[in-house]
């Protein structure tokens, strides 16, 4: 069934939006992230206008996060005190990050720098978590996996006495407010700098820097994502960049997916959650590399195209030029067809590598959500079996006691 997106003026198959919402809902509920780094390239591959992809994703994340946060709260995974304190500092960090981006834009270095920082961050976090998993499991069997324990860094930071000291009963730690603030400011800065929600930066920070249990990091991060998602949805909607119909359709899938993802955290060990998170980071890093390759091809024809647009329409500002390109695709294609073969190839290759990036994230979202659902189902079956066995043992004991 095709649905018409009235604000973007495009059409898209409803099942694609529901499927994407569902898979990212599973992943979001499992890792405590919004999933923008998976959703926006995937939406682009589905033919969704990129200009609306980020805003629409933010809007659906705001709704989905409520569903997942409520579930995580029931499981005892949300440290609201920590989450609320972090939100205040995160906001300031995002503002700083956004202003740094504006400065880089003024000196014309924003694209390559942001992508490089993104790649370095994703691969560093992914490889570190992979290394941690390897270190803790190499001498143990599958059923005797060593518990990771609190990281050395978080133990040191918790030991620093810098009043006011905050007692976080849900996380089970006592830590200085300034450390919480510093971590939140740092993660907020990167979120603002990379133009993302920041869940995938905050979750590992909560685990490795503040010292939360993995499941509490997931739940608390989702609580923050709910607040920052709502703020992001507001700012993008104020710029008329949210396709509300698409966001609602995605939310319907995401709400169901989030149930599975959240429940799976009850059955999957923290170390395994971190392993899956590491794999997600590495795949995202590869996706950003594909986007970087795509942008190199764009650089081959973009200067000539921008001069043509400027001479035809008088537009020179990048956002206005991007808007014009998106609304006049057929004109741009006609212009490209009149250019040299090199430029035409560059235009095609740019789209191809962009599609690779999107398909990789879509494949990763589907594969990962399938694995999470299977692990959840295995956990439920095992739990029911052990409940059945315990019940049988209890009955047998009762009989033994009552027999003369």
């Amino acid at each position, binding site marked *: 069934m095709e649905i018409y997106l009235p*604000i973007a003026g495009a059409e898209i198959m409803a099942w694609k939006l529901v499927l994407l919402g569902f898979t990212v809902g599973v992943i979001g509920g499992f890792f405590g992230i919004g999933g923008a780094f998976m959703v926006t390239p995937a939406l682009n591959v589905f033919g969704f206008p990129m200009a609306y992809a980020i805003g629409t994703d933010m809007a659906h994340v705001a709704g989905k996060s409520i*569903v997942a946060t409520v579930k995580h709260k029931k499981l005892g995974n949300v440290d609201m005190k920590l989450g609320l304190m972090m939100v205040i500092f995160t906001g300031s960090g995002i503002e700083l990050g956004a202003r740094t981006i504006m400065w880089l834009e003024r000196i014309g270095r924003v694209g390559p720098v942001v992508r490089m920082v993104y790649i370095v961050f994703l691969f560093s976090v992914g490889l570190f978590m992979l290394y941690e998993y390897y270190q803790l499991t190499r001498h143990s069997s599958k059923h005797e996996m060593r518990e990771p324990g609190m990281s050395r860094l978080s133990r040191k930071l918790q030991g620093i006495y810098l009043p006011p000291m905050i007692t976080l009963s849900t996380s089970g730690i006592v830590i200085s407010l300034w450390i919480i603030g510093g971590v939140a400011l740092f993660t907020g800065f990167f979120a603002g700098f990379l133009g993302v929600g920041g869940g995938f930066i905050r979750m590992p920070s909560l685990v490795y820097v503040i010292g939360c249990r993995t499941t509490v990091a997931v739940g608390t991060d989702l609580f923050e994502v709910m607040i920052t998602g709502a703020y992001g949805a507001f700012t993008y909607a104020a710029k008329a960049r949210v396709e509300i119909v698409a966001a609602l359709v995605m939310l319907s899938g995401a709400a169901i997916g989030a149930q599975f993802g959240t429940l799976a955290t009850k059955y999957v060990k923290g170390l395994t959650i971190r392993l899956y998170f590491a794999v997600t980071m590495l795949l995202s890093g590869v996706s950003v590399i594909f986007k970087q390759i795509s942008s190199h091809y764009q650089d081959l024809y973009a200067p000539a195209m921008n001069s043509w647009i400027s001479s035809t329409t008088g537009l020179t500002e990048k956002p206005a030029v991007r808007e014009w390109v998106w609304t006049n695709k057929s004109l741009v294609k006609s212009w490209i067809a009149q250019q040299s073969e090199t430029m035409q190839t560059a235009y095609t290759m740019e789209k191809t590598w962009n599609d690779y990036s999107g398909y990789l994230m879509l494949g990763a979202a589907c594969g990962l959500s399938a694995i999470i659902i299977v692990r959840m189902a295995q956990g439920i079956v095992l739990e029911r079996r052990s409940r059945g066995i315990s019940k049988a043992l209890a009955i047998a004991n009762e009989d033994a006691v009552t027999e003369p």
Partner: protein
Amino acid sequence: MKQLINWITALNRSNHAGFALLTVMTMLGFGGLIACLIELIFAALGIRWDRSGNHR
């Protein structure tokens, strides 16, 4: 339904702040409603959620 969608599209063009407020309220509202519905369904089916284990 068509009238509602036309109204939303017109609001998006004429009043960005109003559209932004509508978007946030709609998404949070629907999210909250779905969360409540799911809790009711689970309660009706007798499915209980135990707390997560204390693992890291």
